[in-house]
């Protein structure tokens, strides 16, 4: 009894990831095509300003999320792995925040010293 139980556990470990139904991949695939088409349309119709940026970001994050969750199987992975991979992204967000402040300062300096001509 104990031996058979151990056998089945080993078998489960050997089995690795269980395969998903083909339908889910085909749906995600189709969705990626549609989203790419939409993000191309953003440029085609020459949306400008906040509408353009928010649409670009929306389609981008949706596509990235779909690829990571389903094509890269993160949706089915255990939280120990998912969290190790996703939390470092906050460091990138911090870096973006810092560099935004930095480029604004650079623009200010350039305008102040090169265009206005200093104090």
């Amino acid at each position, binding site marked *: 009894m104990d031996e058979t139980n151990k056998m089945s556990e080993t078998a489960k470990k050997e089995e690795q990831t269980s395969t998903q139904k083909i339908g889910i991949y085909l749906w995600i695939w189709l969705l990626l095509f549609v989203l790419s088409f939409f993000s191309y349309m953003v440029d085609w119709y020459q949306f400008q300003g906040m509408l353009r940026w928010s649409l670009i970001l929306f389609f981008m994050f949706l596509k990235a999320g779909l690829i990571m969750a389903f094509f890269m199987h993160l949706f089915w992975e*255990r939280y120990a792995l998912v969290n190790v991979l996703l939390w470092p992204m906050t460091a990138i967000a911090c870096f973006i925040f810092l560099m935004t402040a930095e480029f604004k300062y650079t623009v200010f300096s350039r305008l102040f010293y090169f265009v206005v001509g200093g104090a």
Partner: protein
Amino acid sequence: MSEQKIDGFELKPGFKGMASDTGSDQTMFKGVHWGKAMMWIFLLSDTFVFSCFLISYMKGRGSTLVDWPNTSEVFSLHVGSVPVPLLLIAIMTFVLITSSGTMALAVKYGYEKNRKMCGWLILATAVGGLTFVGMQVFEWSKLIHEGVRPWGNPFGASQFGSFFFMITGFHGFHVSIGVIFLFIYTYKVFAGHYESKKRGWFTKMKGDYVEIEILGLYWHFVDLVWVFIFAFFYLW
């Protein structure tokens, strides 16, 4: 999920599972092949590399006083005599997504031990990647011909060229490496290395279809990076 066990260790779901997995004094990533975990760690580091490129691009573009080149004009192609904005880039995006889809299916068929189907799908992925690199070569040569250089260009801010060549070049390099490995693994699958448990190179690991998933992770990552480059460099 909760009845699942690995080496007698009960796998709890959710954040409780994360806490017990992490504190289990055994392997942390339960049921995850070590090769897969290592590929994920590599991809995480690669994410930081590409982030640094894109953030430096943001900083460069944001701090220049000269107008940035209008990408939908710079990257337009003439169909007949009508300029179509971003046409080549759109086709490249669709080719890369197509190859990502075939790769996802290859992983699935690999786990089902469907050797033929898996092999053909990896080959299709490789051909898609090769097409992508080919179109990128065309794009580069077109822009170089039009006078785009890392230090200047006729369309606007001189930083444009250096960011363009650096970011798309580094991505194209990733695609090229991926294509080489896709061809190698096409051979390995068709030759039946995963049925005969033939050992790979650099490793004592016995051949298994999990290698196809690891290869797939890399390929999907290349597609993932392109999603961000497409949004920030071409559309923004």
